[in-house]
């Protein structure tokens, strides 16, 4: 058995204080001198621990006389970024990401339909109202559309699913922005109208309690989105993101 290095143990200790909220986001870590005394380690070992936490994006080290280590909220951005790089490295095609998104959202729709109360459906309906006025504004509609899809996974009743879904949406959102930029203005307008109708229908089906029809409808919509966004010429993710 290998003995973990002192720096890794210190990093684990500080990580735990951050995830439990003992050290809140925005707060400064205690000074290097006091942490060195607390853990009984040298400055280089402590700094190595800082580098581990910095690489994980849960602290940021500000250099200089008024510097120090500030706590960041582990908000998932780093996890999403790394996952995007991993998928690129594995040679994942863009269509694979869209298909995974479809499966996750269709599952989420089933969970919303099976929920006891109506509050998840009401939360979706609340997002829906913002879309009508902006169907012709591609950038604004893309941002709204992302919010609607996020609302689907965030109201399914599993924080884990929401965290993981958000990772995929970051990739899809990046692709969407490039897609808009590489097509003439107005190219997405007709599909935005179709999308807005599809969102409304989803809410109506869920509101009427027909979970299976809602899932079928949402799968059809997402498959059509994939076809439009990915098309016949399926590229590797790396060509989209890097």
């Amino acid at each position, binding site marked *: 058995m290998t003995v973990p290095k002192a720096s890794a143990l210190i990093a684990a200790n500080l990580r735990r204080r951050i995830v439990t909220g003992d050290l809140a986001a925005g707060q400064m870590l205690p000074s290097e001198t006091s942490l060195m005394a607390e853990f009984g380690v040298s400055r280089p070992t402590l700094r190595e621990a800082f580098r581990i936490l910095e690489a994980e994006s849960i602290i940021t080290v500000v250099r200089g006389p008024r510097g120090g280590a500030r706590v960041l909220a582990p908000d998932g951005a780093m996890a999403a970024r790394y996952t995007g*790089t991993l998928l690129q490295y594995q040679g994942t095609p863009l269509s694979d990401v869209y298909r995974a998104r479809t*499966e996750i959202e269709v599952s989420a729709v089933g969970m919303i339909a099976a929920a006891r109360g109506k509050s998840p459906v009401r939360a979706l309906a609340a997002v829906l109202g913002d879309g009508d006025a902006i169907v012709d504004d591609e950038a604004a509609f893309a941002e709204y559309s992302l919010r609607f899809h996020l609302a689907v996974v965030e109201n399914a009743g599993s924080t884990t699913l929401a965290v993981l879904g958000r*990772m995929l949406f970051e990739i899809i959102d990046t692709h969407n922005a490039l897609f808009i930029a590489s097509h003439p203005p107005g190219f997405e307008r007709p599909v935005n109208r179709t999308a807005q109708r599809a969102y409304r229908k989803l809410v109506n089906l869920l509101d009427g309690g027909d979970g299976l029809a809602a899932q079928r409808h949402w799968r059809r919509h997402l498959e059509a989105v994939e076809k439009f966004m990915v098309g016949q010429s399926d590229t590797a993710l790396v060509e989209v993101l890097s």
Partner: protein
Amino acid sequence: MSVKAAEVVAAALRRRIILGELQEGDVLPPEDILLADLGVSKPTLRQAIRILESESLVTVRRGARGGIHVSVPRIETAAGYAATVLEFRETTISDLFEAAAALEGPCAAMLARSRTTGQLERLRIAAEAEAAMRDDAQRLLELENDFHRLMIDMAGNATLRVLCEMVRVVIDAATRRYLAGTRPDVHGPAVQAGARTHLRVVDLIERRDADGAEALWRKHIRATAAQVKRAGGPDMVLDLLG
């Protein structure tokens, strides 16, 4: 130093890692050679390396075997990032199993639709190996967790595979803890029931019954969640991994 230039340099190096031109353990050329190659200033290069370091794609080591070492993206690292976010979001173990059902259910359905004769054969061999291991709960649990991963792999969606693995690493810990914390007369029948369910899902996949396989798989994961919950033990991901 231009931040933008540093990002361009980081993106170029990142792309070389993603494309496999730079491999695990490779050491980047010495600084003066890199500077000449890339035609940028020293602060820009150092900033670019810091960006890649913060993304865990390189590690900078000092001393005799020092230098900038390449670390290719790994699923374990991605899962570690995800676990930190789940801990910070105060995710419960039950919540995690809900996400597993939502992600792995579709994998069972996809596999039922697309399975080849060879895949079916491998699945059956794996399920039958479990049946043969019924008296060794520890080993049986390992085989059962392997079976989940085999199905996820065979479903053929690389993105879902990465997301499932993020959940699976925590489930591994939860089920190991369950085994250690319960008496054999409690966990013995439970893991044996799991092995029987695995045989049943193979039958459904053989018949290409996608809906049946998905429904059974979701039910199976929820049943495991219920057993783990009944046995007590930690309720939060944080207490499990921390």
